[in-house]
């Protein structure tokens, strides 16, 4: 007797759940199938020491990673810990701005107000000198031409619009340098 209904706002719905059932025999109570109880909070977010260094660097168009005291690997953006050693990072190190695409996907369903027109490419991008990749959008090239190993650089907001925000980098664009062989990117996703 229950019939599936779609609950997703995505085109055609991607998920379903059963129709709510209504108890029979009591017609004095009108059925309540759904209530809305909105909730929202304001938080004073604390980035912490290392993320604060990263965000302040972005305001100066610098990408700052944090160095593991044992391996020397540079993590970006870092929460102030080496995830391999479980130890605090000890030194901020500038990485990039040139970088390499380590993985990507072509996005056909855009989310959010600032999403570029679809289709576009979301990618993991390894800044030169870093051990792990950053997340970013690739523009300035047909999406079918994006490759793993492709060299890119960040495109920044105009100087008078810079703030302590990752959104300072609007997207990344290809540069005229030879691709990095994929085997050199292993372990750096």
């Amino acid at each position, binding site marked *: 007797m229950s019939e599936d209904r779609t609950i997703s706002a995505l085109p055609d719905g991607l998920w379903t759940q059963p129709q709510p059932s209504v108890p029979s025999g009591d017609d004095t109570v009108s059925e309540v199938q759904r209530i809305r109880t909105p909730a929202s*909070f304001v938080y004073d977010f*604390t980035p912490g020491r290392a993320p604060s260094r990263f965000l302040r660097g972005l305001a100066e168009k610098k990408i700052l990673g944090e160095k593991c005291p044992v391996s020397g690997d540079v993590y970006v953006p870092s*929460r*102030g810990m080496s995830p391999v*050693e*479980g*130890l605090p990072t000890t030194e901020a190190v500038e990485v990039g701005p040139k970088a390499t695409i380590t993985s990507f996907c072509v996005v056909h369903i855009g989310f959010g107000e600032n999403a570029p027109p679809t289709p576009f490419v979301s990618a993991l991008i390894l800044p030169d000198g870093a051990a792990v990749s950053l997340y970013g959008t690739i523009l300035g090239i047909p999406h079918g031409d994006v490759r793993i190993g492709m060299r890119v650089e960040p495109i920044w907001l105009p100087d008078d619009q810079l703030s302590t925000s990752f959104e300072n980098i609007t997207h990344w664009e290809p540069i005229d340098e030879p691709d990095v062989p994929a085997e050199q990117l292993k372990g750096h996703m």
Partner: protein
Amino acid sequence: MTDVAIVSFAQTDHQRALPGINEVEMVQPVIQQALDGVGATISDIDFTCSGSSDYLAGQAFSFVMTLDAVGAWPPIAESHVEMDGAWALYEAWLKIQAGHADTALVYGYSKASPGDLPRVLSRELDPYYQGPLWPDSVAVAGLQARQMLDSAMITEAEMAEIAFRNRQSAANNPHAQLRGSAPVQELLAQDYLSNPLRKHDCPPITDGGCAIVLAAGDKAREWVDRPAWLRGIDHRIDSHNFGGRDLTVAPSIAIAAEKAGVSGDIDVAEVHAPFSHQEKIVITGLGLSDSVEVNPSGGALAANPMMAAGLVRLGEVARRIMSAEIDRGVAHATGGQLLQQNLVAVLEGE
């Protein structure tokens, strides 16, 4: 049953707010200290379990960020509870009982300072009837205190004495946030914060965390001279529906105490009673005699790091056993509002 013991314990210096650092920067030194306490590294740990809350962090999957503090690569066996770390300890204890681990790292933490804690805690309530009314946690606790006062189960003076005793005990606890108290008469002269609760009846709002290392049998004896053996541990739940229970008692505490084996000689009880009147409910539920020293650390009235204050109680009892200060103690942890969920453990030296 496998014998399991607490072998190491560390906690932050609990504070109202740690504005400069994030959660992982706050809790990593404590995890490090707990591991260093037995000369261990993460490679000596078979299972890791943490307790924290996204509602406090204001971020989805916030515990994943904190895993950087334990060195979770190469991959480790790890789990998380959206509860006080005392329940993370319970999960780790089960993991050891199941034969899947001999050692475990448990930690709990939160920064309550980024949000409006009494309102954030209203999201613990059921989302249909109570949550939409946005009762803050102090007002809800006030309902319980009012019911106790009106049933002559406690007086406002007794409540002030409980607050006074806990905070005076905390004067000897370097990790506590509120160390010392004004005299009871002065406390009672204050205005109500949320009638019938005065400020002293309420827990402080705290940023902080703690970490514990568990080990089974011979491994525990290898790591420390005098492990704090977990002789019994149990957790139970009362109804979340305020209208469906007598708020002046928490039967789940009495059941958990019986199952955990709370009886005989007990030197110290560390109980997790965030509001002054709740201590009386907990002590009654545990069936403790007057000779038991309650909350020598100052309890949650002296420092109340959400998701950690319950685990701290286990750590405080274990610390006193490991240092041979006491032989046997009871630890209690609570979760949710009005003592809804309760965990009781009995710890003992050899």
